[in-house]
């Protein structure tokens, strides 16, 4: 009996330093569910209004360097349209580069909002990519590595989910026509369910290196009873499409 009693402090000590205890101490919300009482934005959402691929071209004047970059781009949607892949400068078309934010929010593929413990996950059909939106009150790290998707923290403002994202690299486009951005890009997404079936996004682009002022656009999304499909950009598939359709369609007129 004395041996058992004597071992209790050892057991308590072992528990105190166990990985589980450490994890719980570091992330108080790690084992909690989605924020209690928070608005429910879960579900699969598809952009309304057909295939909207682009943001307004003249929402805010571009800085000279950004304007020069935009004017140099060649693609299927922008001011300098080309058909052939060889002439196309779109990083998504040429290299299957990640779309990043906000480009992934455009076009005709849905995304799925998944409330989770201490965060919200957003799963994107296009590119089959995802984002983690940290909802546990943390701030952006002071020394972020530049990344394709940036670092996102979220909070509730009444019935709106406000996502703040920074830490991007400058290798993505804002949309399909090629609106540029820099590594100073700061994106704020404000999502609000206007009714059961509709989600409104107020998107603010703040990038003083690329634009002379911040600008805001609104997009709407409709709830769909769907699963997320697999729409992955694969170089072999792009090559097949280029050979079968793009090259003959871009050849000199018959």
């Amino acid at each position, binding site marked *: 009996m004395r041996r058992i009693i004597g071992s209790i402090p050892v057991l308590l000590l072992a528990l105190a330093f166990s990985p589980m205890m450490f994890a719980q101490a570091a992330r108080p919300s790690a084992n909690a569910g989605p924020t209690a009482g928070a608005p429910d934005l879960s579900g699969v959402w598809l952009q309304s209004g*057909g295939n909207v691929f682009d943001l307004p071209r003249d929402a805010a004047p571009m800085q000279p360097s950004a304007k020069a970059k935009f004017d140099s781009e060649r693609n299927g949607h922008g001011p300098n*349209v080309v058909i052939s892949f060889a002439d196309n400068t779109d990083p998504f078309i040429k290299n299957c580069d990640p779309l990043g934010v906000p480009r992934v929010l455009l076009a005709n593929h849905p995304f799925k909002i998944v409330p989770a413990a201490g965060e919200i996950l957003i799963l994107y059909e296009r590119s089959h990519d995802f984002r983690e939106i940290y909802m546990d009150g943390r701030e952006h790290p002071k020394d972020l590595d530049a990344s394709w998707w940036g670092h996102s923290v979220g909070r509730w403002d009444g019935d709106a989910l406000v996502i703040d994202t920074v830490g991007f690299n400058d290798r993505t486009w804002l949309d399909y026509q090629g609106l540029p951005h820099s590594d100073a890009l700061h994106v704020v997404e404000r999502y609000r369910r206007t009714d059961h079936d509709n989600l409104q996004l107020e998107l603010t682009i703040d990038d003083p290196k690329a634009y002379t002022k911040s600008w805001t656009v609104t997009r709407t999304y409709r709830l769909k009873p769907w699963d997320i499909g697999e729409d992955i950009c694969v170089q072999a598939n792009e090559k097949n499409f280029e050979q079968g*359709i793009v090259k003959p*369609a871009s050849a000199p007129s018959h």
Partner: protein
Amino acid sequence: MKAKPVTCFAALFGLLIVAIPVAAHHGGVAYETGKRITLKGIISNFEWTNPHSQVHLDVTDDKGNVAHWDFETQPPSILVHAGWHRDSLKPGDKVTLVAVPAKNGSTIGLLQKVTLADGEELTPTEK
């Protein structure tokens, strides 16, 4: 061998001013917006794939010349919501197909509608 599909088995109707209901993320600049062609032919292959599914159609004129046409449409993740399936089109199927033609006159098009022999209509638009 190339043939212009304008005869009894391959009817061509164009110059209808219509919007293209399906724009590709690669852009629709290769196509003659506002025109549509209607072709009757035999499916030679159906590629159910990213970034765009492809429908391949053999069109024979009244002299027996066969023109091979290639059409792009939406990827599987979108077509499933329009009622398509990977076996919706099979080699040998006799169909009538409506498309927006390429500007350069090649046998390439942006698919708008396929009507199967039993009258079933497939479009790339969500149902």
